């Protein structure tokens, strides 16, 4: 049985160009992801429910008299012209949530099989950027964990994609876990990846992240081949992150054991996530991306902590 499984070329991935053609490859590939992310975000935005959009950050709050010593630029001359006093326009003070986004760019994310719609890394990028767009339009600030500060610009997708591209060009080895840094209290993190790591390492990293009280979502991307193990006959498996190989005489006889182990691994990861106040969602790349985004949004709004498979 051939599954058509393969690893995409590093240059093929949206954010992992390794050569001088960084800009070129990104130009070729990112727009599609960016457009997909925007489309999905828009469909979620309009598809679920309406949201109060007016007044976030731009609204007028009050005029107050100008006090000497202030910068003259702050004077609202139109109002001041009405009488003899000078006024300063004050806006509503806005404090947005800050969300940190992390997407796994490690080699194992480059896996794609014939059953999948796109490589895992592309799906992760699409979902991450779409979530960023969605959140920024909802008034939040979004940053890339370890790569950028939190931004709330309208072109958040393009900005983040740019940063990712630069980062991908600079770094050759991508860690398969988010950077170990303690997030500020009450911030949230969205971690997207395949999390095919040792559960203990994962627990350590998550503990560090949430040590100051941050919470968030974990979105596990899985290829359908990884879930169903549709191999048969004589197969030699190659590991992606290391040089390990496994030659199997009759792959079909390994399926049950693999499924058991995969379930155990997932359960472990989910447990760890729950323990650190993270939600846990599994998303398969043969499903539409909007499905996962919808689930993600629901979790973010609910802020509840439970695992589900979207």
């Amino acid at each position: 049985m051939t599954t058509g499984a393969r690893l995409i070329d590093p240059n093929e991935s949206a954010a992992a160009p390794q050569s001088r053609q960084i800009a070129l490859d990104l130009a070729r590939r990112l727009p599609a992801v960016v457009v997909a992310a925007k489309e999905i975000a828009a469909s979620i935005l309009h598809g679920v429910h309406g949201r109060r959009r007016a007044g976030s950050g731009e609204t007028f709050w009050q005029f107050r008299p100008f006090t000497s010593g202030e910068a003259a630029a702050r004077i609202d001359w139109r109002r001041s012209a009405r009488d003899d006093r000078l006024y300063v326009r004050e806006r509503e003070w806005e404090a947005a949530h800050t969300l940190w986004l992390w997407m796994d760019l490690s080699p194992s994310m480059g896996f794609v099989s014939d059953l999948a719609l796109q490589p895992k890394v592309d799906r992760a990028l699409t979902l991450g950027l779409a979530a960023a767009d969605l959140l920024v339009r909802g008034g939040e600030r979004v940053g890339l964990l370890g790569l950028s500060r939190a931004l709330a610009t309208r072109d958040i997708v393009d900005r983040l994609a740019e940063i990712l591209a630069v980062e991908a060009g600079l770094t050759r080895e991508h860690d398969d876990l988010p950077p170990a840094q303690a997030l500020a209290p009450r911030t949230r993190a969205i971690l997207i990846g395949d999390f095919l790591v040792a559960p203990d390492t994962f627990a350590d990293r998550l503990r560090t992240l949430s040590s100051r009280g941050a919470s968030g979502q974990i979105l596990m991307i899985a290829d359908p081949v990884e879930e169903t193990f549709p191999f048969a006959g004589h197969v030699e498996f190659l590991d992606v992150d290391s040089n390990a190989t496994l030659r199997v005489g009759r792959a079909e006889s390994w399926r049950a054991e693999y499924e058991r182990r995969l379930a155990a691994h997932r359960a472990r990861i989910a447990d760890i996530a729950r323990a650190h106040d993270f939600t846990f969602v599994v998303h398969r790349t043969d499903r539409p991306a909007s499905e996962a985004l919808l689930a993600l949004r629901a979790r973010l709004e609910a802020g509840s902590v439970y695992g589900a498979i979207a």
Partner: protein
Amino acid sequence: MIGLPVAFVAPLALIGLLALPVIWLLLRVTPPRPERTPFPPLRLLLDIERRDETPARTPWWLLLLRLAVAGLACLAFAGPIWNPAPAGEGGKAPMLVMLDDGWAAAPDWDKRIAFAASAIEAAGRRGAPVALMVLSEGAREPTLADSAHTLDALRAKKPQPYAPARLAALPAIESFAQAHKGAGALWIADGLEAGDARAFAEKLAHLFGASLDFASEDRLPLALAGARNEAQGLIARVLRASPASAAAGRVRASDMKGQTLAEAPFVFQKGNEAEAKIDLPVELRNDVARLDIIGEKSAGAVSLLDDRWKRRRVGLVSGASADVAQPLLAPNYYLSKALGPYADVREARADATDPIGALIDDGVDVLVLSDMAIGAPDVREKLDKFLAEGGVLVRFAGTRLAGSQDDLTPVQLRRSGRVLGGALSWETPKKLGPFDEKSPFAGLAAPDDVTVLRQVLAEPEPGLPARTWAQLADHTPLVTAERRGKGLLVLFHITADTTWSNLPISGLFPEMLRRIVALSGAAAHTAPAEEELSSTDAPQKAETFAPNRTLDGFGAFGAPPGNARALAAGFRGAGSADHPPGFYGPSDALVAVNALEPDANLAAADLSGISARRATIEQAQPIDLRAPLIACVFMLLLADALASLWLGGGLRGFRARRASAAVAVLATLGALAFHAGDARAQNAPPPAQQPGAPTQRDIDAALVTRLAYVVTGDPRADEASKAGLQSLSRTLAERTSLTPGDPVGVDPARDELVFYPMLYWPISATRPQPTAAAVQKIAAYMKQGGMIVFDTRDALTQRPGGPPTPEQSWLRKLLEGVDVPELEPVPRDHVVTKTFYLIDGFIGRTANGQTWIEALPPETPDTANRPARAGDSVSPIVIASNDLAAAWAGDRYGEGRYPLVPGGARQRELALRGGVNLVMYTLTGNYKADQVHVRDLLNRLGH
């Protein structure tokens, strides 16, 4: 192998087949390379303890494929041969291989050589010495040698262009058989009886008994013999020996330089003889020097033609006044009947003032004057010149000759005829005497029933017998001849009709004339022979022709071989070893010798009842199967490599369609390699579409007479032309017996014009001039008898004496490249005004314009008072200016479409009448100008 005609060169290699089960076991336990696949969650599995498991087995089809590869490779190494050459029997006893090498063996000479070689090789494998004997070298004693030397000798053999004389070889064979008792013999026969095949075979059976093999070919060769140059064409006799041979084919005629002049098909119906008729004009036919059957490469399939096959032009002049009503009384009737089958007979035109001069100018080879006195000195001069340049002048006597003082005769004539058996004669009618050996008529039988009632007599004089070609039983000269310059003067002392003798209605008469006509071409180079013939006391000198170019056995021209001997004059026979077929003599007077006699027939050798083993050459073609097998192995290996790649996931990078394309390419390459071994190109090119093939439009145009107009590109003019011609066609169909088809618009540059009797061409000055090629076509159309009606449509704008209108200038420019005859305004008595209606002129949308037509010849007193005059042909051009088509054009109800000036239904009717007259003039020409219509015309004109 059992049941199959397969043998192996190295049968030991077949032991390798025993290894197949081992290979099978090995393949079963060593599976193909596993599918390699990346798998990110692998680390979940890495720590599972390794279970002891056998890998998946090799798929059965891959197993089968590999076994097939191994098996086929084993077979290929064993060197299999399909249809192996028979090993032959006879152990180490010597063997005699006899090879027919006449022309009949040439078409499949390679196969015969291959067969002989395989037999010799087989003998060599047995260790038996072999003697080779080609039957054309019959007298040479066969010598035994080992097979390698004999093979070399065999490969050097070439077929001979004549039939082998097998019996001549028998003594040598007999002595061989006696010297080597128990020797085997193989006769590779050409299958024809020619050369005493049956007698030869019987003798062989007697000599060699049971150890005799015959090999022959089922498909017997075709041959050409006895071409005849007849009035209707050059007829070639195609012969075959048995119905098993090819049933149809083509004969090619080529000239002395080898250029093909014509080809003609032949089909055998019943029997073994067919005819191919090469239909060429006489001038070209006389150039034919060689006929051959296409695809038959043998000297027998070639017929060489020399001067004897040329068709002579014979001119007939009779002194009698032409009386067509009673042909049996005219001498020319008998002459043309007798000469017609093999010569081109030309008679002077009845009204020719100088028939002899006209015929000589016409280039006749033979001039026959029957009962004509030559009086005028200029005619005599011409005849002398004709004779001096090699012409043959044949004269027949008659009352006019007998009574005239004419010395253009070979012998002195007594000025009174001799009457035998008449009322005033004591003697009975005389019969013909036998022909002298030296006479050209030698060999012809003189029939008893030919009698001579009356003749002119020769003065007895010295040399008269030598000039006599034919005589009566009492030695009275009947035909005398004499050389004059290069030419020949022959006198028949009788008339060419039956009044003096019944010779002209006997079968001998055409034969005699034929011999005389045949002398005409050879007159120049046979002059010495003729002199010898005319002077008995000259020493006998053998005239010979050295070989010039001879045919080899395959029917190709080459230098004559060393043993070719010069040909005696008068040689008539088939080619032989001494005289191989070919051309003999000097280049300007070649004599052809052919492999077959003109009346030859082919007969298949009947060898039934003779005890010998028989083989067919065709079947015995051993085919080496090694190359195709190895190609097969190679292809299967490729397939195996692809399959392994696929099983190992190596084809992942391929798109599916790319992979299948690659497989297709590989399969094609393999197939090509497979067929390269015995690729024989026999694909005939598909009949190509001929460039000049008629289009559907042309076919339609040729089937129905229709009017046509030239599409100018000016939409208004074209619409008017179309509507006008439609209306005119309708009128023609209603009023005349002509029912034209729908009118068409033509483009002179593109369309074929020849189908349209009349072209209507409205001039539109704003349109560009047609191309030079189109103008040429227009000119050719006018020359071929077409008529173009140009309509300048400018009657309203042109002024007498004023500058030419733009339309006129345009037309003048167009006609610069055309040969336009002298024109005149249509005269009142021109036939075009009388062809259907009696009209005064051609009226169109306007009525005042002038119409021009080819000027008639000036009036003669004979034609002065006729109401209608015409030239010899239809005027190729009519130039009108009244916009005819617009006046013709009408709607369905007959109402005019365009306003007329001055107007009225009468004007439209007159316009249509003019149109009808134009069409009728085009179609009937000067018919209405004939005298017989004068009375009717005058009657009608009077009213």
